[in-house]
């Protein structure tokens, strides 16, 4: 039985296809989901979501959100989801430095601080995902 995976963000439908397995960053660590999984709802952490399909692997950088699992279907509702191959490493690096500068520049209101931290977290994640991809080459794992 195939496992249908959908990744949605508030602004778009990022992915919709049948897959063999999906590894999801949960709040308390990574969850591996195969077909016939117990129904589950979970919070998502920040990290890399990996999709295995026909021996290929694709990955998304995921920031926060929710996960809903049914035996034949997985729905990921993330704040943001970026396909690893579409992340521009240089841009991600620049965003990271920008976020670090903002944080280093001192006084922040609660909400601003949280936003700046979230930006940094996302930039770091993008850098990590993009670098891993560079090292291993696209879709190399079987």
């Amino acid at each position, binding site marked *: 039985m195939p496992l249908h995976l959908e990744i*949605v963000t*508030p*602004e778009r439908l990022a992915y919709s296809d049948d897959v063999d397995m999906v590894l999801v960053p949960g709040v308390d660590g990574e969850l591996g989901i195969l077909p016939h999984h117990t129904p589950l*709802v*979970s919070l998502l952490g920040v990290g890399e979501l990996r999709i295995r399909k026909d021996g290929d692997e694709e990955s998304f950088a995921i920031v926060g959100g*929710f996960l809903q699992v049914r035996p034949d279907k997985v*729905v990921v509702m993330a704040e943001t989801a970026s396909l690893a191959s579409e992340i521009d490493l240089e841009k991600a690096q620049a965003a990271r430095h920008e976020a670090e500068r903002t944080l280093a520049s001192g006084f922040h209101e609660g909400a601003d601080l949280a936003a700046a931290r979230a930006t940094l977290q996302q930039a770091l994640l993008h850098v990590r995902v993009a670098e891993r991809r560079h090292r291993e080459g696209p879709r190399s794992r079987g």
Partner: protein
Amino acid sequence: MPSQREIRRRIGSAKNIKQITRAMQFVAASKLRRAQESTLAARPYREKLDEVIADLAAVLGADDHPLLSSRPLDQPHNRLIVIITSDRGLAGALNTNTIRFVAREIADHPGDLKTATVGRKGRDAMRRSRVPIAAHFEGFGDKPAFADTLPLARLVTDDFVAGIYDRVDVVYSRFVSTLVQRPVIEQLLPVQPTEDTVGIPGNQFLFEPNPALFLEALLPRYVATRIFQAVLEAKASEESSRMVAMKNATENAQELIDDLTLSYNKVRQANITREMVEIASGAQAR
């Protein structure tokens, strides 16, 4: 009869107006396409959240989270209406319709009520009719981002939890088609789970890390998503309404130009005839 020059001046200004309205019509048309796309693109997220809430409905009680608890509405209660209008005018009857809809809602349900407005037009109307405005947001631009609507969502949920409001509704103009936009009212808070139609009994769900934390994160998101969707719908309605209004204006301007051109020609012809008669009678008199 107005002079030839007077008519020519009026034709000139009608032509200018036509040029402007035509340009606005095309700008609105291209913005409409974008607004429509982002409204459609945002729909899956909202649908998935709806599904999750429906799944949870079976295991949820009103006591599980403050955003679910409905308070008796037959007693005096405080109400907040979030009104979504456009920042700019020249969009036909769109904002008037939305505002009239709100006015009727207010008149039908007297009681303590405040409004939160998105868009300048709504704020101006509420100010004129002296309805208290608790908060105002504007300048979401042509492509509203989800992050733009978060402050409003946070304010609404915080105030509801704090007990300042017992019920929160949102009024916006739903985009039905390019020609039809209809103002609608939807209840935001307390959150009302829809019935689970897909049929996995809710009590079989595992919660990670636990139900309380999950709801704590999910419900405010859900409210924010509903607001975001409403803002997108209102945006698409605005552009389509403006496009149609400007199309009509362009056509009217063309009609006016045609009428004026006709009378211009008549006046010109009358002047030529008169001059000829004058010349002829002058020659006879000699």
